């Protein structure tokens, strides 16, 4: 079923005021009954979790380390259909007619590790904390455009008001960063960024953390969800060296990465792993988000839209896809492939076109050269391509350089440490940059707010086209899914030609390897959701 259609149905149901959301406590789902209890799981994590305060956290690394310690109001379903939002702490909820008031009913059994119940006060406190001004709120801050206020109606009922009706709000609430934290602990001044201090309500408790080496979970024996979690304990080894991680997977020292969240291993490594493990290790692919090249429009010649268009035309996206992902990445659409633009449509876009025998369409190259000449650069120009020494950026760079060289743009490759690179981007000290953006939720709103509008995390130089801003505001409040899609198409048409500062290259996949012995491993819609381990169980007798 197409994502867009499902999204529309959900939206219609929400806006019609119909109760949406399953209740886990009412009837134990089948998948809970089927799981085997017990066992100790060894996983790996490709990076150190930097922050243990989920509201302060910015990356999936922190989300992966903390999500199992807490609960959120709502969550994505851990078993298919995994893009359905079900309740976590909330056993049910209602949305008002005008779509701006949500009423959540909390599960009465929910309690903190210290025995106190999880109440509406905790929820209100947490929601306010997520949008607290003046504090670092890299991911939870995404709620700010939507969230207005919340109140505790009674100990187990919360009412939340939003500034305007939007389906994105609930999706954001289901992200791994938007967990509920204990009011009584924080008001006592305890710093929950220290692992030892964490008091959660989640299925696992923090059981040790050695930076650079591992972090561990142990079962919460009084977990308020019946039948969960399955595992007795989990030990997550931090292995930043991919080669080492892969060999650990091969030898069975670890049984996988924290599932469905992306592990940083490349497609070739994934293929080699599946092959060498003779079926023991399965790879899961999750679409992570749009990856793109962005230019600093405050510097010449990138302020000229003709130059930007030329760059977009010259990029050979298919070659990059082939080189890095063996063709498995999605096309470089503005919004999620298939949601607004179909894959077939995208393949007709200038810059994305190919001849029947697979070569880049020469019309695009000619047009790019023409545009450059018109803009005053008939012989091209030199530019610095700044990227960080992580991920696949280094592997792509030689290809990007060769591609742009065809229209006369000579790139000087500059690779820097991740830290230095981010600083340079934020300070506007770059000419051409490159980043893959891992989206938090699948709603198109995030594409606007993070990439194309001023203040976005991928828009350090603050480029904003007033036309795009106008479309964003219109579509965010549009309740009719068809009308909304039409507006998104409008935006897409504007942006695909290089009107913005960002040229989408692909929608890149992340691969997560897991041993067949680990059960209930499914992918969420993005890598920033569903990082909880409560649904995993171990079958020691499983075979490939």
């Amino acid at each position, binding site marked *: 079923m197409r994502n867009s259609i499902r999204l529309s149905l959900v939206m219609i149901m929400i806006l019609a005021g119909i109760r949406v959301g399953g209740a886990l406590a009412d009837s134990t789902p089948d998948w809970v009954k089927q799981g085997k209890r017990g066992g100790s799981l060894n996983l790996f994590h490709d990076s150190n979790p930097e922050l243990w305060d989920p509201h302060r956290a910015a990356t999936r690394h*922190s989300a992966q380390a903390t999500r199992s310690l807490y609960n959120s109001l709502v969550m994505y379903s851990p078993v298919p259909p995994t893009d359905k939002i079900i309740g976590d702490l909330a056993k049910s909820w209602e949305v008002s007619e005008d779509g701006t008031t949500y009423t959540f009913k909390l599960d009465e059994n929910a309690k903190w590790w210290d025995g106190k119940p999880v109440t509406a006060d905790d929820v209100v406190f947490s929601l306010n904390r997520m949008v607290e001004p003046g504090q670092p709120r890299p991911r939870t801050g995404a709620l700010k455009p939507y969230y207005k206020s919340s109140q505790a109606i009674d100990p187990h009922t919360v009412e939340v008001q939003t500034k305007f009706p939007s389906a994105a709000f609930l999706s954001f609430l289901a992200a791994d960063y938007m967990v509920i934290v204990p009011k009584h602990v924080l008001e006592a001044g305890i710093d929950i960024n220290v692992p030892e201090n964490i008091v959660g309500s989640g299925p696992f408790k923090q059981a040790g953390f050695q930076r650079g080496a591992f972090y561990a979970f142990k079962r919460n024996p009084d977990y308020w969800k019946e039948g969960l979690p399955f595992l007795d304990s989990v030990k997550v080894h931090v292995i930043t060296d991919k080669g080492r991680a892969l060999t650990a997977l091969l030898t069975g020292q670890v049984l996988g990465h924290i599932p469905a969240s992306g592990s940083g291993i490349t497609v070739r490594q994934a293929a080699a792993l599946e092959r060498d493990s003779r079926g023991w290790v399965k790879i899961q692919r999750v679409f992570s988000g749009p990856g793109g090249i962005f230019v600093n429009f405050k510097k010449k010649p990138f302020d000229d839209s003709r130059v930007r268009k030329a760059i977009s035309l010259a990029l050979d996206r298919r070659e990059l896809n082939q080189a890095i992902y063996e063709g498995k990445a999605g096309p470089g659409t503005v919004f999620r492939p298939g949601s607004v633009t179909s894959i077939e449509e995208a393949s007709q876009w200038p810059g994305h076109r190919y001849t029947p025998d697979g070569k880049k369409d020469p019309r695009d190259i000619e047009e790019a050269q023409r545009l450059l000449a018109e803009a005053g650069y008939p012989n091209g120009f030199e530019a610095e391509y700044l990227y960080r020494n992580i991920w696949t950026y280094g592997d792509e760079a030689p290809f990007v350089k060769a591609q742009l060289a065809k229209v006369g743009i000579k790139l000087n490759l500059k690779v820097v440490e991740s830290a*230095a690179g981010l600083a340079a981007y934020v300070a506007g000290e770059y000419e051409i940059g490159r980043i893959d953006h891992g989206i938090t939720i699948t709603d198109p709103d995030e594409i606007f707010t993070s990439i194309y509008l001023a203040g976005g995390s991928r828009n350090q130089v603050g480029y904003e086209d007033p036309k795009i801003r106008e479309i964003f505001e219109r579509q965010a409040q549009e309740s009719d899914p068809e009308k909304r899609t039409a507006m998104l198409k409008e935006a897409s048409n504007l942006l695909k030609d290089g009107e913005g500062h960002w040229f989408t290259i692909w929608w890149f996949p992340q691969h997560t390897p897991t041993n067949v012995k680990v059960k209930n491993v499914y992918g969420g819609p993005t890598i920033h959701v569903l990082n909880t381990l409560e649904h995993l169980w171990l079958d020691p007798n499983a075979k490939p």
Partner: protein
Amino acid sequence: MGSYVVHRLVLFIPTLLLVSLIVFVVMRIMPGDPALLILLGEGEGTYTPQELDNLRHKLGTNRPILEQYVTWIWGVAQGDLGRSLWDNSPVMRQIQDRLPVTLQLAAMAIVVAALVAVPIGMLSAVKQDSWIDNTTRVFTIFGVAAPPFWVGILTIVFLAKVFHWLPPLDYAHPWVDPWRNLQQLIFPTLVLAYYEMAFLARVTRSATLEVLREDYVRTARAKGLMERFVLFRHVLANCILPVLTVSSWQFGRLMGGAVLIEAIFLVPGTGSLLIDSLYRRDFPIIQALILLAAIIVLVSNMVVDLLYGFIDPRIRYSEA
């Protein structure tokens, strides 16, 4: 000699101050603001300039550099190494966790290296220009030429592909689980020892050759003493000096952090902590580790000089 030691120790202070100043300043010149990094995460997320200012204020990175330096160095003089910028844990504790590991690795590597190097070095010298000598020389010269990080990578590939075995992932202290500890450290030890052994063997060979030419050795031989007796008694005793001095120097270097090897073999020592902290711009940890490395190098150099002066009274080294 006592006054010499005191003299040297006193000279430590300006040197260490200089080291601390250099590292402090270099850290601040390097691009990469830790407050910004903490907020930015891996490039995900949003923040407001107010949040950035608040964090900088909290971390203390917005104060003038001189003030930051004085605060820090004053704390160090009192034994307070500060706290990590990222997770606020005391730097001292992190170093305490990691130092024994690097210590064990360095010590094991030197001991293994010496045990192999001295015999083959001496043998090579005694049988100079024979096939034994030439083979050994080629072997050791290659050992010094092969980049240790390359040897480390090849070792892991070999182990994984041929034996399907890898060192265990979690570090265990030797007094907790000696077998696991051995498994984890044996291969990085061997890789490091290979390099140091080659080095030391060359030194031993040279030293042995030197001694063999000495007049009194020739005299002893002429007197008809047994070859082996001559060898062991005189030559060994006189080789001890260069071997000891070079070993001390090597140990000091390894304690500075066998950074690449620790990274490749996932050894949780000070070397990998340093690299980690460098990438994250966790200044207090970096500064503390480099000071520590500097102290160790200075101390081991001093020990080397003392050994020289002590063992061979003919050589009294005096520095200007």
